[in-house]
């Protein structure tokens, strides 16, 4: 082979490699259309009122639905159970489940920017759900609910649907999550104290709660917080622990008849007396009564199940999802109603599922949504303690209620009263679900609250100091017309 020829050959090899590189690079861009079925289904109007229960849409075309979720492996496993059931019912539909455990919002934002969104996606009300909905990216699920024979708004438990404005539902939660007061029974027995009542009607007042918390806060020398010699710098067991995020303190703002914005949605309301009083009382637990760890000290408190088990804390205000962890830690725990400021109240927080407008198969996506909300499919997560069912009859029908609240480690004796009944009778929607521009308001509020939790400023001064700036971010409420 002449040198010339050899050179030619090496060039062609190089060129071939280059071409391959380019091919790989261009392969990174999205396929022109993942669901290139020839016919475009008609949108929501013709929704599934007559979706045959026996299975399948009329045509037998192969359909792929893409769905994105976050969550722990157990939760993904539960989705897979629901999807398997769904695929069995609709043999022509395949669900392509994408699990995005971290940076979910960033990745979904990138998908939106690249015009490559899933058909159905799990969404979080505190982050990108509403910005997307405001740009009309989601179907109004009200249209589906109105014409569906199986589920409607009345069948769902309160506060699990998210609306952009009255009548425009952008997402449905597969189940609620509410707050309650978890405690270690042995600590109460040893101290000879009556544990928190489970019925909301008998719930402790705030003062009773503080009183008990003081008796249960013990320093390293065994003195409790009522002892004049009590040393707040070396506390061995805290009376109570709670998160200092909005989900946690909102329970008490609502209980005290306060709110984040006024009823007409026009005014910032965290600087109003009701909210200020609630925030101050919570901060006083840390800085005046010394019965709760400060946000800095709280970094050393392990997860609620471990904290209660190891007697680092006697009581914990936390979401009911901690039941799963508590059930696995073998010790005597129970749950009571949250202390009451003016009325019993719990905040319901939950993720949601939304259907993207760009889907070619809205009917099928809605069927998938229903499958995901079906408590029977999610029964493992519900009995494990992490989730609660989405259908109201699972709370009111004794047989169904027994399925997920009786004879389970994750559902202690106080659960039905303290969690189930409180959720049904006195629950409030999460502020992220109705306060417009919530994140921007909280960008102003959170730094000020940092100072309140650390005891550097009173709640009144802190909220007054930022009221004007927060007011400029107030844009109204989603549950008020106009």
């Amino acid at each position, binding site marked *: 082979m002449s040198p010339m020829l050899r050179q030619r050959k090496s060039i062609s090899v190089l060129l071939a490699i280059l071409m391959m590189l380019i091919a790989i690079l261009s392969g990174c861009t999205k396929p022109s259309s993942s669901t290139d079925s020839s016919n475009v289904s008609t949108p929501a109007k013709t929704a599934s009122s007559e979706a045959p229960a026996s299975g399948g849409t009329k045509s037998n075309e192969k359909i792929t639905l893409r769905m994105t979720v976050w969550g722990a492996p157990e939760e993904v496993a539960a989705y897979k159970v629901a999807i398997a059931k769904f695929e069995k019912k609709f043999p022509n539909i395949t669900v392509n489940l994408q699990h995005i455990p971290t940076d979910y919002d960033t990745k979904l*934002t990138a998908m939106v920017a690249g015009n490559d969104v899933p058909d159905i996606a799990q969404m979080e009300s505190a*982050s*990108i759900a509403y*910005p*997307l909905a405001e740009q009309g990216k989601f179907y109004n699920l009200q249209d589906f609910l109105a014409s569906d024979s199986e589920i409607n708004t009345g069948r769902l438990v309160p506060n699990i649907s998210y609306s952009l404005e009255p009548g425009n539902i952008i997402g449905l939660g597969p189940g609620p999550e509410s707050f309650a007061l978890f405690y270690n029974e042995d600590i109460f027995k040893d101290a000879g104290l009556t544990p928190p009542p489970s019925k909301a009607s008998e719930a402790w007042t705030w003062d009773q709660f503080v009183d008990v918390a003081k008796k249960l806060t013990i320093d390293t020398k065994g003195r409790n917080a009522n002892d004049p010699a009590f040393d707040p710098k070396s506390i061995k067991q805290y009376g109570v622990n709670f998160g200092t995020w909005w989900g946690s303190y909102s329970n008490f703002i609502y209980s005290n008849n306060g709110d984040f914005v006024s009823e007409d949605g026009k005014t910032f309301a965290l600087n109003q007396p009701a909210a200020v009083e609630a925030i101050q009382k919570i901060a006083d637990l840390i800085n005046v009564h010394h019965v709760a760890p400060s946000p800095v000290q709280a970094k050393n408190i392990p997860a609620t199940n471990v904290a209660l088990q190891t007697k680092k804390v006697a009581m914990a205000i936390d979401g009911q999802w901690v039941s799963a962890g508590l059930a696995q830690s073998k010790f005597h725990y129970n749950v009571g109603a949250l202390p009451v400021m003016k009325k019993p109240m719990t905040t319901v927080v939950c993720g949601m599922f939304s259907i993207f407008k760009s889907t070619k198969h809205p009917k099928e996506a809605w069927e998938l949504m229903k499958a995901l909300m079906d408590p029977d499919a999610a029964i493992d997560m519900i009995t494990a303690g992490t989730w609660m069912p989405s259908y109201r009859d699972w709370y009111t029908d004794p047989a169904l209620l027994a399925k997920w609240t009786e004879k389970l480690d994750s559902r202690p004796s106080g659960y039905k009263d303290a969690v189930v009944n409180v959720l049904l009778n006195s629950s409030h929607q999460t502020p992220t679900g109705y306060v417009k521009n919530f994140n921007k308001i909280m960008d102003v509020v959170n*730094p000020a609250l940092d100072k309140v939790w650390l005891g550097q400023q009173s709640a009144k001064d802190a909220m007054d100091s930022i009221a004007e700036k927060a007011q400029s971010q107030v844009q109204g409420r989603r549950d008020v017309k106009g």
Partner: protein
Amino acid sequence: MRKRLFYGLLFTSPAILGFIIFTLGPMIASFVLSLTDYNVFREQTAFVGLDNYIKLFSGEDDLFYKSLGITFYFVILRVPAVIIISFVIALLLNMNVKGRAVFRTIIYLPSIVPAVASAMIWMWLLNPDLGLVNSFLSTLHLPTSNWLYAEGSVIPSVVLTTLWGIGGTVIIFLAGLSGIPKQYYESIDVDGGGWYSKLRHITIPMVTPTIFFNTIMTIIGSFQVFNEAYILTQGGPNNQSLFYVYYLWRTAFRDTQMGYASALAWVLFLIILFFTFIVFKSSKSWVYYEGGERT
């Protein structure tokens, strides 16, 4: 000749293409976007001219100035610390001691620990109640600190955590030090000078090009601090660690205001460019190159 040009371009094409596709293209795109109100979730994007920049500087966005101030504070604290400490470490590692290779490895090791892992380690070390640092201080009866969790100490604490990963800078200093010819030191020995004269009149002048390079790289790296805010502090407490790039990221990906975030990015680019330029200009008076000439 033409053939050589072809080969030259062919073999450098991965780098050239990489630069054009992944750096130059996005830069141009982001500059164009910075002149628009591009929001990822919105269908229409309008050209708004310099509005984004005007909004930045007009004071309407007070977090812009706040994050800028905090980032400057961080840069001012970190750059001298990195340069001085890594230079001293490099001097020590350059000495002829037993186990020099082991020490060099130990110093470099943290640099290969992923940023997230190293941040988690520091979170534990600096934990006010359980952390090793405070426990150590209190056994010595020294005052403890809330480190990352107090407004006053959060930036110095972040600087402290980043100092752990200066192995790369040390290596470059070591390379500079090993390039100093032995005979210079011998001449000082002949003249009867001690270690200080060697350091002052030989070592430091001879490594000024390395100091110069490291200073520029550290300035650029420090302005772009992000991981620490993202992992350790989320900008808190009370926005006291809201670094510029963290704020930029939050604007772009949480608030989805890509246009405005692009403007933020360009302002940072110009700031870094400006400081790099200043250091370059000043280098004429303090950087020496072999041959005795100042550049």
